């Protein structure tokens, strides 16, 4: 799974996000964690990309069990400062999850806001 996955317009939105934020990987799933689109950065191996998707899938299910459907953002940071950010948002009555993995110190809030807007636009077509 080292190739991008999903409809072209969604892949384009995720690729733009990766390039602007220099993120390691960007994944778009539904609320159940089912993969809708993904865009890895060059050099990011398929195994880790699959691991991110599986992780988001499990986390999405646990979030529902922990009554966390209303969360706006979940961030996990390791001791090196690398972060995994998950941002749920609604499109056309459906909850989607945008997850990005990034190196320490990278800004992400505005970039993911832009990406969410791009995904909403792409969804409309």
């Amino acid at each position, binding site marked *: 799974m080292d190739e991008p996955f999903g409809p072209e317009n969604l892949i384009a939105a995720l690729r733009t996000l990766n390039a602007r934020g220099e993120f390691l990987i960007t994944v778009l799933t539904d609320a159940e964690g089912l993969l809708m689109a993904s865009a890895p950065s060059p050099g990011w191996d398929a195994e880790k990309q699959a*691991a*991110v998707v599986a992780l988001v899938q499990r986390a999405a299910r646990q*979030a529902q069990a*922990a009554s966390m459907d209303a969360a706006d953002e979940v*961030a996990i940071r390791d*001791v090196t400062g690398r972060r995994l950010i998950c941002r749920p948002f609604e499109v056309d009555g459906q909850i989607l999850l945008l997850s990005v993995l990034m190196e320490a110190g990278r800004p992400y809030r505005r970039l993911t806001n832009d990406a969410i807007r791009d995904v909403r636009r792409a969804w409309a077509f």
Partner: protein
Amino acid sequence: MALQGSLQDMGVADLIQHNCQEGRTARVDLRNGSGGQTAALFLEQGQVVHAESQGESGEEIVYRVLSWTEGSFSVEPGVPAPDHTIQRSYAGLLLEGMRRIDEGTPEPEPPQAASSPTGVKAGGGPAKEEGSMSERIQNLKAIEGVAGVVIAARDGVVLEHSLDGDPDKEGAVAVFVGYAAAQVGQSLALGDFEWGTVAIGKETMLVVEQPDFYVGLLLEEKASPALVASKLEGVLRI
């Protein structure tokens, strides 16, 4: 009919956890293989309410027997407790017991005074240990930017909190983030989990993992998670 077995097959912590999770009322007799000491734990509706050994009673007995790894046990269901000397939840007892074993805390000297009905002995440990958990909560809450604190065991049981809202829900959130973080570490071979955050509306919870539990810090609206996290050293084992 009593259930009997070896502590090598089923440890004391597992015995307590299993019977308490089942909500049992029972007498658990323990015999230490190495020293020949005996102890009896009494469970009522899934909580350890009394423990006695060699004329002593209270929480300290539980902490002592948790270190027994050889010997035998028997569980007699339905036996009522002759006294109630323990008030801490079984999860709290197990966590404190494990913490003492991890830290190699020496067993306290046998008390000189008789046990009080609550199991808090004159100059004894339990009150101090309860105090230290509350103290930890107070120290965390004193950090600038922290509005509330919840400490939850890995199974989601809230051990202590200083929240006005729903501590069980906040505890579940803390455990969710901690668990997800562990999965991130395993799946992506990242470094150790440092901290995580969950933002819900204007509320942000900072979650930090400790050896036996998760700490959730409800942050004030303008507080920076990174800044608060940097102040945790000294209050928590980071």
